């Protein structure tokens, strides 16, 4: 059973004033099929964890290990991590002018699978997945993320999660900026991917509302660069009532 294992992870970000430590010893194990919610106040390092796992060049791992199925994830380039089965649904998806969604999806699918998808089935699969996420078919010919609304960008991220079939998906504040309808559509997409592929999910969020649609098996409270408390879904309910106040000292604040 594939496992994503994070051990004592320390990560710094490059700033003008030099390296600034963000993650201070993260330990987390995710097995396939499991959904882990990471919740925490702004500035606690949740998104840094997501970006560092995907290999964003802005972040430097100063110590610790991450293995995917026993393989050293940190030794891999960004594209190798994706091909090894890691997917990051980004908080701020990037515009790529002049590259159509259809071309992008086919290119990425080909890279991840190591071979081009079968023409006959691929077109149908993309069309079906787009319909499920209520993405208009004209999006296939539009440039990647260019001129997309916030909700359209997030649906496009989940479209990729469904089509690329990763072993592990990190959803970095996929719920932020979504209205209730869009939140439901996006959550349905994640749940479809979970039931179709047994993907392990790391759901990073500031709010509890997405957890009404995507049920977590485990909830981790992230404060000041590490996990401060862990529990089951009931922990999310406590956070819903009490907020992050009991965890927040001088180092982090609620937005």
């Amino acid at each position, binding site marked *: 059973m594939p496992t994503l294992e994070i051990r004592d992870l320390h990560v710094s970000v490059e700033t003008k004033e030099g390296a600034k430590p963000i993650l201070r010893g993260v330990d987390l194990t995710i097995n396939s099929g499991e959904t882990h919610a990471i919740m925490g106040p702004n500035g606690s390092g949740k998104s840094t964890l997501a970006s560092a796992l*995907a*290999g*964003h*060049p802005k972040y430097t791992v100063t110590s610790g290990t991450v293995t995917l199925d026993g393989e050293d994830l940190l030794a891999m*380039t*960004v*594209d190798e*991590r*994706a*091909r090894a089965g890691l997917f*990051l649904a*980004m908080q701020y*998806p*990037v*515009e*790529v*002018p*002049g*590259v159509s969604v259809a*071309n*992008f999806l086919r*290119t*990425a699918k080909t*890279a*991840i699978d190591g071979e081009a998808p079968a023409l006959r089935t691929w077109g149908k699969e993309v069309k079906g997945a787009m319909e499920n996420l209520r993405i208009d078919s004209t999006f296939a010919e539009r*440039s990647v993320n260019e001129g997309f609304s916030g909700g359209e960008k997030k649906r496009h991220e989940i479209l*990729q999660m469904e089509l*690329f079939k990763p072993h592990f998906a990190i959803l970095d504040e996929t719920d932020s900026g979504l209205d209730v309808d869009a939140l439901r559509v996006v959550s349905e997409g994640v749940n479809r991917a979970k039931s179709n592929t047994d993907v392990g999910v790391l759901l990073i969020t500031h709010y509890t509302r997405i957890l009404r649609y995507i049920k977590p098996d485990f909830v981790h409270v992230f404060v000041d660069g590490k996990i401060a408390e862990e529990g089951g879904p009931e922990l999310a309910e406590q956070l819903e009532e009490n907020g992050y106040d009991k965890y927040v000292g001088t180092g982090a604040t609620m937005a």
Partner: protein
Amino acid sequence: MAITTDHSRAVADGAHSHGVVPAGSRAERKTSFDLADIPVPTGREEEWRFSPVARLQPLFGEEHGAGGVLTTVVEAPEAKVEIVGKDDPRLGTTGKPGDRTAVTAWNAAAEATVVTLPAEAVATDVTSVRVEGATKDLTAQHLLVHAEHHAEGVVVIDHRGDATLNQTVEIVVDEGAHLTVVSVQDWADGAVHASSHRARIGRDAKLKHVVVTFGGDVVRLTPDATFTGEGGEVEMVGLYFADADQHQEHRLFVDHAVPRCKSRVTYKGALQGAGAHVVWVGDVLIQAEAEGTDTYELNRNLVLTDGARADSVPNLEIETGEIEGAGHASATGRFDDEQLFYLMARGIPEVDARRLVVRGFFAELIDEIGVPSVEERLLASIEAELEKSMSAITGVAE
């Protein structure tokens, strides 16, 4: 009152700055057929300040030969091709030379190749003018493309091989005619090419002017467009890709001298390698009588590696307030690492991700050309250019 903006030295990732005072109005620039009126430049002049004048020096002299290039015209069935003497009255009607290489080219050429699309003829095929470098001997060449009233057609001027060429291309678009002129600079590495394109656009006429520059040591093209009748329209599209030590310069001038004409300028370039230098200068003059003018110009540069330099200077002079619209945009950006990260995070290797981004950068412009044979060739040339930088990247990575 004249409103003037200058955008000197657009820098990477920065928006261009307004407020630098340019060196005089474009309307006051000296133009003449007479060599004595336009002296050899020092490199400090406004129109030469970005140019490698030392590499262009031979073209400033009065003596030019004529045998350095072989010119082959394959014309559409409807088109007419002639070789005429320089005394032919159809020559020199598109305006006077505006800089030293333009005036030496005008004076040095003894004859001209004239391509005519006769009145009301609609060309059923592209007319191709192939200019092939035969020797490095300094050569002057004069071409005239003339679309008579209500004619329609496409003329592609295709430069290849190695040459030292000083060229005049006159373009006359008579009343109601629709003409597309494409100039492809696909030279070998050592070629030096200066070319003054001077276009005259008549009443209700439309010119699409396309420039594609890939090769050469120095290429300096100065397309001028002047409206002579109301309702005229010009669309100027340019695409260039400079490698290490190449200098590619495109200086445009659109002269709105009559009312209710429209101009659109879109130039995009990529550059890579130490010493690669691209220059784009877009001068637009809206004269006092040119009410109802509609103009927009845009230049974008994509810097792929360190050590390459792009200068981008849009310059708009407006002498009347009664216009439809006037605007410009200029931006020079480095390759966007966030785009690269996004694509690579989807499993796409760096080499392929870069290729996607660069192709995407040019894609919209390529679609605008509207001549399939040129579009295909262009895509192939972009691929070839990318191969060079990609092998450099994979070399570093491995």
